[in-house]
């Protein structure tokens, strides 16, 4: 019998989908595998490839088995194909097929729509690893380095997850799409990644933390809505990916927390009370709070763009088809068909931002973005608690959704962080107060010196409250290979 809980290692590719009995897909994956390893090896600097990293690997998709920690060399990490256990008699939770049995094969009429969603999701996974490839060289601690690499290998595994779906369910085009996922490259002129935020630089660790907090959170929302899919293999894949994605949220939220914590500590030690006295705060070797706010503004606004157009027939079609649901669809108390419901969407009318009621079906993207904003605001509140506790008079805030947008209705206007529509001239005069400048970047870059001694942290970031896997503070999370 096929063991769907425990991970089988009887092929080169760990899996719980019975690959060894699925020769065609196994062959396709094995053909794809060397290209993937080659991509990975070209990406991450060699001395890190040789280092022993304390990573978690899933040994089963049962809750007790998916977090087995051990030292692993990254190229030997067991990337695999892991799907959450199949729920018996699962039905399509939304749209016009609501209540019918979930599809185990691709429904012909939605083939292209499904493939496109999977390709877009798949494209983001390697994109972020590419963006983060050099961060190990400036890791503020071995703890942080380990977290970076954990994020990287799991993004790699998420790519595998999408590639499996493409190869298993989409035949020749699926295989071609899988190959293209390794050809496109973040920031490339000829073949960039598909979404803008995945072509931006991740030049420093604060960017990395902001990226994992804000941009990976978009990933989480997308996975949550794909986990509702009536196409059961996609749903099961995404459900398991979400457990891994939670770690990325953790790295982002606690990373930013620790930066704020350290800034507060340094200010209090030096008796500084004015958070806007940037020069003096920077003299302490920590990142000043206004710069942290600017970084937040940047990453948040780039991430909002990932939700696409506020009113979208594509999103309506995907929902109606039962292919992509809403965030926590099962907790929403409505008919899950939305044929006659409406939803409030912001639009620009006569140079003003106004709320408009539109058919809820067309506002699926908007709704997901609203859920995202609520989710993202929670962490900002928790960051502010650190400032409060330290007695520093400063509060971080999410900028208005109209601020610094390239996609959607707000792309047409300029708005300040409070959401007031402003002129180009006013924007140009103030943009340096709202978004990180070259000088800000250079200052942060100047702090990015590696700290590789177990238990030690670079001066601009505080130690974490709890170790990974309950390990003590001076645990050697990465045994560095010194060539």
């Amino acid at each position: 019998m096929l063991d769907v809980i425990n991970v089988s290692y009887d092929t080169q590719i760990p899996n719980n989908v019975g690959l060894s009995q699925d020769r065609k897909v196994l062959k396709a994956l094995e053909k794809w595998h060397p290209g993937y390893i080659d991509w990975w090896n070209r990406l991450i600097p060699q001395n890190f490839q040789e280092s022993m990293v304390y990573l978690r690997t899933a040994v089963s998709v049962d809750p007790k088995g998916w977090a087995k920690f051990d030292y692993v060399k990254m190229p030997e990490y067991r990337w695999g194909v892991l799907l959450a256990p199949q729920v018996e008699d699962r039905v399509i939770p939304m749209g016009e097929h609501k209540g019918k049995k979930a599809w185990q094969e691709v429904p012909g009429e939605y083939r292209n729509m499904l493939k496109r969603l999977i390709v877009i999701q798949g494209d983001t996974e390697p994109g972020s690893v590419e963006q983060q490839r050099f961060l190990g060289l400036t890791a503020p601690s071995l703890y942080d380095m380990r977290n970076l690499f954990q994020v990287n290998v799991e993004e790699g595994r998420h790519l595998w997850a999408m590639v499996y779906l493409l190869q298993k369910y989409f035949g020749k085009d699926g295989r071609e799409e899988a190959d293209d996922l390794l050809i496109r490259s973040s920031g490339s002129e000829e073949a960039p990644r598909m979404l803008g935020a995945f072509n931006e630089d991740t030049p420093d660790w604060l960017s990395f933390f902001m990226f994992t907090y804000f941009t990976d959170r978009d990933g989480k929302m997308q996975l949550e809505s794909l986990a509702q899919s009536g196409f059961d293999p996609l749903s099961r894949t995404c459900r398991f990916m979400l457990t891994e994605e939670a770690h990325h949220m953790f790295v982002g939220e606690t990373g930013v927390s620790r930066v704020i914590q350290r800034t507060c500590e340094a200010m209090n030690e030096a008796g500084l009370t004015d958070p806007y006295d940037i020069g003096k705060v920077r003299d302490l070797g920590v990142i000043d709070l206004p710069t942290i706010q600017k970084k937040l503004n940047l990453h948040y606004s780039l991430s909002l763009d990932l939700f696409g157009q506020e009113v979208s027939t594509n999103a309506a079609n995907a929902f109606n088809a039962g292919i992509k649901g809403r965030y926590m669809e099962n907790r929403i108390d409505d008919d899950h068909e939305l044929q006659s419901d409406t939803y409030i969407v912001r639009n620009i009318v006569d140079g003003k931002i106004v709320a408009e009621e539109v058919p809820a079906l067309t506002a699926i993207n908007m709704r997901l973005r609203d859920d995202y904003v609520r989710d993202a605001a929670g962490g900002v509140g928790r960051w502010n608690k650190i400032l409060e506790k330290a007695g520093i008079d400063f509060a971080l805030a999410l900028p208005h959704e109209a601020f610094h947008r390239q996609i959607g209705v707000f792309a047409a206007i300029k708005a300040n962080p409070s959401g007031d529509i402003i002129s180009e001239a006013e924007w140009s005069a103030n943009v340096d107060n709202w978004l990180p400048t070259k000088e800000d970047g250079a200052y942060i870059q100047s702090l990015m010196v590696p700290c590789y001694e177990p238990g030690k942290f670079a001066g601009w970031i505080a130690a974490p409250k709890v170790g990974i896997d309950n390990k003590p503070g001076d645990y050697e999370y990465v045994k560095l290979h010194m060539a």
Partner: protein
Amino acid sequence: MNKPLKQHLIDPEICIRCYTCEMTCPENAIDHDDNNVVVNAELCNFCMDCIPVCPTGSIDEWRVVNDAYSMEEQFSWSELPEQEDLGGDEAETGLEALDETVAALLAEAHKGAGGKSKAPVSAPKPTINLYSLSKPIEAVVQGNYRLTDEGADSDVRHIILDFQGHPMPVLEGQSIGIIPPGTDADGNAHLPRLYSVSSPRDGERPGYNNVSLTVKREDKGLCSNFVCDLQKGDTVHVTGPFGATFLLPDDPDARIMMICTGTGSAPMRAFTMRRHRKAGTVHGGMTMFFGARSPESLPYFGPLKKVPTTLLERHLVFSRQEGQPKEYVQDRMWTEKASVADMLRDKNTHVYICGLRDMEGGVEATFTRIAEEIGQNWDELRNTMREEGRYHVETY
């Protein structure tokens, strides 16, 4: 529900509200509002499915309470409340285990410390109750070796269990439960028997997911005979880990004094192996007073003699050695009183006593005399050490 009860809580200062626990919980005992993620004490059955899936460690929090914190209270928190001082014996059981019987067993074993035990400050946070009577884990026996000579008057075994890739995050000093097969006279399954592990946290063999136990065959002992008769390849049902205070400090400067008899050597072996594997990074030494009737009946006699003396100063003491006067651990402690006194004065010293309950009286008396010699009151000194997580007793 029995009072006081142990309540599962989530630390709102560490939780990132990813809701992975909520999606994982098979009992739907976890819920969230805009502020917090909380556990419903009426629904949580301690299955522990939420523990490994949490990316932050915030979910592994427990409080002993008379009345469970309601969901509403938990929703309003911005930090966890301190453990209330409930007084009374029940609260003394602390959080060594989640089920009453195991907690009571450990409380009984630890009572020789003269008060509520505390873990060393630098000990890592232990995992407890990952596997329970209703959800045990199956382990495969990798080996069963007799530790005492064939002719010796006791049959002590070194049993190695393999967990086949399933997590068993057990720390030195913690115990696991073995469930003997079959049922009792009333037809109920037997309760697990606790055994302190004798291997360090990274496994009997480093990096292998295995654990060793040191088990003495007891006359008519249901579980000990079952365990001592296990053959390679047999399977056993295991619960645990249990125990949250009798733990090794991670502080490299900590000095360790170990006093044991018989199978009380199990945690001491684990401590010694842990420190051996960390050799070069630990500075505080280890001293061991280990008593047995004769070298033939002293578990690990051979291997112990091979541990470098720079790591472990050992005093193997025999009460029935031919041609020698009877000597007990407390006698040797008295002979070595200068070095014992030196350790007692040092704030870095941690004392561990493990073995038969009989040994407690003699060891206490000797500590009292040595403390007097350095002008200290033993009860006060012991209470201070215990309060600081530096004095640990596990006797049976």
